[in-house]
Every structure is written in C-alpha cells, then in structure tokens.
C-alpha cells in the first residue's frame, strides 16, 4: 500500500505543498483534482523524487523518501509526465523500451503494451515526434507501464487531446484498473471523468488537501467548492 504523511514540496524557497496525507490500497486508483497551480504535479513530483520534498512516503515496505529519483523508479514508481515528454530522437519502440530501463519483473512487455494500444504496434518504427498528441500520450503511459510499476503516476492524462481521443485513452486505463494490483494516481482536468475513473479522489487547493473521499457517491457540489476554495457557508 501507499502511505503518505505530511508531504511538503518546495521549488527553491517557494513551498508548493503543505502537509498532504494520503493512503491507498493495492489496486486502488486516486483521482487527483484541483485548479491550475493547486499542486497536483508537485504532488506527483514529490512522490517520485523530482522535486525537493519533506515528509514520509512509504510504498509497501519501502521508504521512498530516503531514495533519489532513480532509486524510486527502481522501487516501482513510474511517472507519465505532463506534456508527454517523448524522447524525440527515438522511435516509438525505443521510447517504450526505455521504460523497461529499471528491469523490474512483471506482466508488462512490449507485446502487452501494444496490445493495450494497438496503434503503437503499428507505428513502432516511427520517430515518436511524428505521432499525434493522443498517440504520444499512449506512448507516455506505455513507457511508464513498461517499468512494471507498483505505483503509476499519470499526470494530465487528457490535456490537449480531442474528446474522442481522450475517451480512447481512458477506456484503456479503465481496462488496466480492473485487472491489476497496481496503485494509480491520475491527474485529470475533467472532474467528472476523474471521479468516474477513480476509487478515491483528492482535491488540492493552494497546496493543501481541500477535500478527499470515495469517488462512489461523491458530492459534486462539495467538490466544486473545494476546487474553487469557496467557504462552506
């Protein structure tokens, strides 16, 4: 399980997160929501060691906070970053294979990733830079899966994608969710879609946890208030 206690994150002197707590069971998906600048990406970066952070982050028996980014990747944390971040000089296949760089054992192979996203198998030898935004998003997710992660961090799953493409990506993610012990944290702009895709949700506001709870039966009005920081009066 994933156990986060009092997580602070910093960019130099600027503090982006203030004491966020979170606890997730294997197989659970967290929908991480919040306005721009609320600290969603900072939260993911603090978990995978990309930014200065303080607080306790435990994944199973591993104390992630004690490890550098490279060690956390080896311990099973994989990030599909915002903006997709393709390796532009590499082909689609090479991009995916880079994900297996940490050499963790598990079910994910090139064949399984191209089974999940068939278009990637078709375009395996193309330079990743020539793909559409949606296809690049699939490469970014596939690359993270190739690491056989215990904790999958998906930043901005559908940002900048056409609605129909975003739907396709989410359909693939829904398939993942039903069949694995992997813990997933997903950042998604569309709150309704995020709530539909998660088991629990966490709404951040100016770096603090504003509201958290199960997605099933979530009160969208309360989430709206937490999202925009309006008082409950």
């Amino acid at each position: 399980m994933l156990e986060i206690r009092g997580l602070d994150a910093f960019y130099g002197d600027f503090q982006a997160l203030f004491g966020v707590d979170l606890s997730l069971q294997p197989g659970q998906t967290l929908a991480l929501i919040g306005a721009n600048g609320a600290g969603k990406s900072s939260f993911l970066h603090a978990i995978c060691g990309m930014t200065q952070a303080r607080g306790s982050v435990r994944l199973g028996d591993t104390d992630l906070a004690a490890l550098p980014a490279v060690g956390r990747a080896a311990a099973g944390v994989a990030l599909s970053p915002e903006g997709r971040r393709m390796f532009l000089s590499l082909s689609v296949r090479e991009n995916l294979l880079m994900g297996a760089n940490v050499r963790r054992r598990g079910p994910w192979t090139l064949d399984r990733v191209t089974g999940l996203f068939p278009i990637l198998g078709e375009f395996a030898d193309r330079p990743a830079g020539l793909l559409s935004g949606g296809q690049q998003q699939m490469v970014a997710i596939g690359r993270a899966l190739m690491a056989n992660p215990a904790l999958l961090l998906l930043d901005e799953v559908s940002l900048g994608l056409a609605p129909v493409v975003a739907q396709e990506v989410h359909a693939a993610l829904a398939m993942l969710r039903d069949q694995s012990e992997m813990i997933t944290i997903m950042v998604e702009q569309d709150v309704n879609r995020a709530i539909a895709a998660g088991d629990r949700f966490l709404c951040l506001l100016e770096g603090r946890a504003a509201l958290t709870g199960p997605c099933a039966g979530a009160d969208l009005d309360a989430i709206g208030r937490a999202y925009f920081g309006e008082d409950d009066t």
Partner: protein
Amino acid sequence: MRPGILLAVAVVALVLLPFGADRGMLFLASEILVVVALSQAWNLLAGYGGLLSPGHHGFVGIGGYALYVLTRDLPVHPYMAIPLAGIVTAVLGFLLAPILFRLREVYFAVGMWVAAEIFRIVVMRWDYTGGAAGLPLAAARSLNREWMGASAYWLALAVALGATALVWALMRSNFGLRLRALKDDELAARSIGVAPHRVRLAVFVLSVALTGMAGAVSFLSALFITPVAAFDINWMVTIVFVTIIGGIGRISGPFLGAALYFVLRETLAFSSSWYLVALGATAVLVMLVMPGGLAGALDRLLSRKSTMETQP
C-alpha cells in the same frame, strides 16, 4: 551487404596507404585522422550527450604531455604509452567531473574552458613537465626512424577508427539509448530511472580518454612538446568547426567535416587571413543552408534518391 564491402575496402585501403604515399602525404593523412578522432570524441559528448565542452584542447595537451612524461620516467615504449595517455586523461576527467557536473549548460562550458586554462598554466609553471620550454621525446631513440611516419599514421588510424567504432557500438547499446533519452528529455529519463550523473560521467570520461589518446598520437611524431602547442585553442576551433559543419550527433559528421576542413586549409594555404575568412564564411553558410551539417544534407539527398528509385 554492399555498404559493408565498401567499408571493408576503404579500411584496407587506409591501412595500406603508407606503402603508396610519400612522407608529406602520410603526415597530412595522420593529421586528418587525429582531427577525425578528436571530433568523434567531442561529437560523442556534445552531439550524443548534449554536453558542450569548449575545453577539450586541455585534454589534447594532457594526453600529449602524458606520453612525454610517461616515456621519460618509465620504461614504456612510446606506442604503448598511447593507451596509457588515454588512461591518464580518463582518470583526470573522472576526478574533475564531480566539480564540473555541478555546473549546467553554459556554466559547464565556462567550467571546461577554465579547466583547460588551469592545465596549461600548471604545465607551464611546473618543472616536472619542463615548464614553458617544453619537453623532448626522451624515448625517441627506441623509435625506428624509417617506419616512424607510417607508425604514427597507423596509430592515428587506429584511434580514429576506434573512436568511430566505439560511438557506433555505444549508440546501439542500452547505454546509448539512455544517453539519447537523457539528451531528449531529462525529466522523462529520470522518471524511468535513468541516473543522469552516472550516464554523463561515463560518456565524459570516454570522450576525454579518446581526446587524450588522439593528443598523444598527434605529438608523437613531433618529437617535442610545448605548452603553447599542446594547449593551443586552435585544437578546439578545429574540433568545433569539423563537428558542426560535418553534422553534430551523426557518426559520419567528423569525417565529412574533416574532409571539408582540410580541403579549405590546403587550397587556401597561401594566405592565412583568407583561410580564416573562408572558414568563417563556410561555417555560417553551412549552418544557414544545411542545419544538419554535411551529413544531414547527404542523408536527405540519399533518402530522396532511394524514394525515387522505389517508385514505379
């Protein structure tokens, strides 16, 4: 298999060159190969690794001096001292890397240049390295005069082809994939467990080791070394010109760039000022018209031809 056969024929022809060339031609050929080796080493670091170093002339000098000091103080044959010079520069690079890697981008470049200056000043002030007056090759006696030109040429050929083979092999390895990923996008690379420092350290040490070996080969046939010649900034100017004009980040770049560089130099040898003007103008022109350098332009030409051939 035709390109493979072509390559083999070219290598055999290069190996046999000393039997058909006169002394002057052989000397020029050695010089060209040293420049190819230096550019390939720099290309590995800058083109594939994304670390722009304007201080590689410092490692040319260290390699040259390593040859002269090692053969003076230890009973090693000058030819055997060439790989040893590579080890000396590799160790120096390894020790300096923790300091230099604290700097990023343009600061790293400044740091490299400062390091090269420090090498020059230390060598110039130190009696052990002969000071400003330089050193003669103490082991010159053990060299066969008749075969010296040919031997220097073969060593230059070995370093140039060795550097190229190394880059070729690296870029087909897991390490090469990690290196390119890191250059493309550092955040994404770190997120999948690529350790930026480890990868950069390895490529840096390899690059400076090759540079040191090429430097040692270059000063072997001179029989004399001075700080001014060894740490000459013109090494750097040549390396950057050749790599960028030839096509940075492409394995054929250093060869094409060196060919153009030496054609310009030999045809404009009558006037040093026109030579520099031509060099600068060529650099500007190539960068404007062919952003990928000569190698990039050649690639485009070949792919256009092959698509024309495959069309019915």
